[in-house]
């Protein structure tokens, strides 16, 4: 077992939430990702023991969903939308400029471990197309240049928490909706924002 006591305790707490152990699989994979930044084979072995299914069954689920990363990502996972609304609003320019800036092809991570680039299907921000996400925190109404500014900022400042509202204010444009509620909870890693997993944090 390569998980420490604390993590195992957290895992057991999660398993208790479900009527059947194997139902906890999805959340446990997120927990594994919050630990390593990706789903390691070690984590798969631990999870298979915890929920009582075979390792390959866990692997099967973890490789099916693209948000469970099979390899370590950089500190910032940049996901640019390539679906139809964004494409119409020139996301291809955003994609090519971000790629030029980072020097990365799709699903690649740079040598410093700073950026991972991916072009993804709809991220649910069609009203503010073109849009992209940094560690799943969304920025809408982008232009190619703004996207580069954003990447530049990430590269220079390297913030530990990225917050959607902040990035939107500094680099974004038109937004789909304005909920008028400030959300200063940001992402601390590429694991999607689950408070129970401590992958989100309010910015001080």
């Amino acid at each position: 077992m390569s998980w420490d006591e604390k993590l195992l305790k957290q895992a057991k707490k999660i398993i208790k939430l479900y009527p059947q152990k194997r139902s906890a699989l999805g959340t446990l994979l997120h927990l594994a990702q919050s630990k390593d930044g990706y789903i390691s084979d070690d984590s798969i072995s631990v999870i298979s023991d915890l929920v009582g299914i075979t390792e390959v069954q866990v692997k099967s689920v973890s490789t099916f969903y693209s948000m469970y990363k099979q390899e370590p990502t950089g500190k910032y996972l940049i996901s640019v939308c390539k679906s139809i609304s964004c494409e119409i609003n020139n996301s291809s320019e955003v994609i090519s400029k971000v790629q030029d800036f980072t020097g990365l092809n799709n699903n690649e991570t740079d040598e410093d471990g700073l950026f991972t680039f991916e072009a993804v299907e709809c991220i649910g921000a069609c009203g503010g197309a073109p849009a992209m996400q940094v560690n799943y925190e969304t920025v809408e109404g982008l232009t190619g240049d703004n996207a580069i500014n954003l990447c530049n900022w990430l590269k220079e400042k390297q913030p530990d928490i990225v917050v959607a509202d902040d990035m939107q204010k500094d680099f974004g444009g038109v937004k789909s909706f304005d909920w008028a509620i400030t959300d200063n909870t940001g992402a601390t890693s590429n694991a999607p924002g689950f408070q129970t997993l401590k992958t989100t944090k309010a910015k001080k």
Partner: protein
Amino acid sequence: MSDKVNLNVNGIDIQSDSNKLLIEACEDSGIHIPRFCWHKRLDPVGMCRMCLVEIETPRGKMLVPSCTTEITDEMVVDTESDVVKKAQEGVLEFLLINHPLDCPICDKAGECPLQDQTMAYGPGESRFVEEKRHFEKPINISEIILLDRERCILCARCTRFSDEISGDPLIEFIQRGNKTEVNTFPNEPFKSYFSGNTVQICPVGALTSTSYRFKARPWDLKSTRSTCNGCSMGCSIELNSSQNKMLRILGVDNDSVNQGWLCDKGRYNFEYLNSEKRLKTPQKSINNNFVDVEIQDVYSELSEIIQDRKTKVNFLLGSNLANEDYVAFREFSKSISDTEQSFYINDDLLYQGHFGQDNELAKIDDLNSSDAIVVWAEDLKEKMPVLYLRVRQAVKKGVKLIVFGHTNKTLSDIADVFYGKETVSKNFEIIKDVSKLNEIKNYVIGKNVTAIIGKSTPQQSDDSVTELFEFLRSNSNTKILNAYTKGNIYGAFQTLENIKGTRDFVENISGENTDLLFIVGADPVGRSFYSNQIKSIIENLDTVVSLDIFNHETAELSNFVIPVSSTLGEKEGSFTNIEFRTSRIDKLVPSPGQTVSDWEFITSLMNFAGLSNDSNSLEDLNNKAFVNIETSSKPVFDNLDKPSNLDGIINVYEPAINTSENNSTEALFYTGEKLYGDSVTERHSESISLLGSKKFIEVSQDIVDKFNLTSGQCSMVQGDIETTVSYIINDNLPNDLIYIPINRRDLNKFDFSKEIKVLPSRVKEALNVN
């Protein structure tokens, strides 16, 4: 509510049972719908879309997959419309996009559903000009199974089989979309006892076995239906040969027995037939050297011994003979019956069992219809793997499973109630605490119970098994399946009288009561729990005649070794399984050299010695086999060969087992057998020899601590016997009890009534010093 529904398929009215799937209902009425993923014995999944048909709905005609659509009354179906044809062409065009079309080098070509259905329903040409998906060509997913992912059409038959049927899902879909592949977890090979079934049900050439790969083309194969004689399950099999060499065994769907499945041992333990090391000429031991002799000389020498009426003859028969062989020995025994003779069957676990009028015997199908199954026997997965599948199937349907004994490691995983070391003592007795059994009263009292009961280890007393059965019989409506697991042992029950096991052999046989011993198809010195005692007995006998396929440890001690043909594929005859179901054994390949059948040898000897003999053919012996069965459905060849009887005929019979009482002795060890071992046939079957060569013991954590074992290896020392084995921790074992699989090489050479020292492995210690 009516149980039948009426459908109209392609304009024809058909009737079917109401809970069926459309594809099944059509199949039953002779209307074939093409399919890849649907399999009669697996849950429907709707992966391949090949079985699309049109049905009429309130919204007009609609394409639906017939494998996931249940039939309803008045359903109107078209399986041949233009729309359906177009859909089938489309599906096949898609399936072939990434299929490599390497039929010329593919083992499946000629019997490939993808190939056949592409010819029958395909578009004839492809519009796909892009690069196909590429994977590394076959990868080994286990020692005996190869996977070619390029050929895979993602039907999920193999993954569903391993999940639903065998319960060891070690292969699964990895990745998604265009990248989807079947694979194992890294460093976790597809080590299943049932992996060969996935090769058989694969509708393309993606899964192949190392055993059959590149050996033959389907159109060159000769085939016949026979019965597997590996264990007392008696699975129906199809034998395939080419150029007089046995090449493959397939499972045949016998609804009441194996339902199409086989264990890997049954499927691949035929390769020894083609071994170069087989005995081909009769041999005689002269000054401890074997020299080839003419069989006529053997007959005349043995005749002289037999004709001396004072000669005392005994038999030690293996459990893998055909019924007719047993009959031949019975007839021989009758013709020389001046002294009392016994038939010793090569089974360490033989005991009286529960037969006769007081006990209702169960059939395998009773497992599904009972309320609870109680098991107190050898580990079924190791000894009768396909019976394990049937138990598993019943449990999946909701039958409660109650398992007794730390000896049942694999069944404990699926049991509803497991009585392990807390209830079953180290000496294999159920601790007489009635309150413990209260737990299962709800499951058994007044219910229909199928009890699979037999001895699990030679040290176990006969009483311990009987006690549980008495408890069940007095509290519930219990049917019993006597768990004798060895080969055609029920055939021996049906044909022989005065049967004893190896334990009685050790107690009874000596130079005083035996001048001539026939050992037929048995290697007790190499395999038995009583190996050492049997060895010293045989060494002290005047004349020992061994009839076998290979030379082995027992044959080496004999005066004569006669090469015989194998019951698997080289003999005609019949086989009787655990529910007294007799089915046909058929011959497909000739046996090599001067080999004879066991019955041919013994009848020839009778004729040579001038003994009275009126059964000179296989048919004569077969007709005599079942003298005690008076029904019209006697399992003689004439009856067995009727098409309606291919699955076998059941005739329950009360055997004359004559073992002495075995009292419990203190058990220092628990000896059992694993599925794969080191018997002489397994050693000469390449695939199996890879699986059964590892030597190991199972121990409790207690023993690991006590002997300070750390390296994963340990030495076992007793006198001048020393062997290095790896150890596995088995939490089911009581403290201080070591499990030793005695069918692995040399592990039966210890004296299990005395202590064996367990030491940390010396080799590893030396490494630690360095």
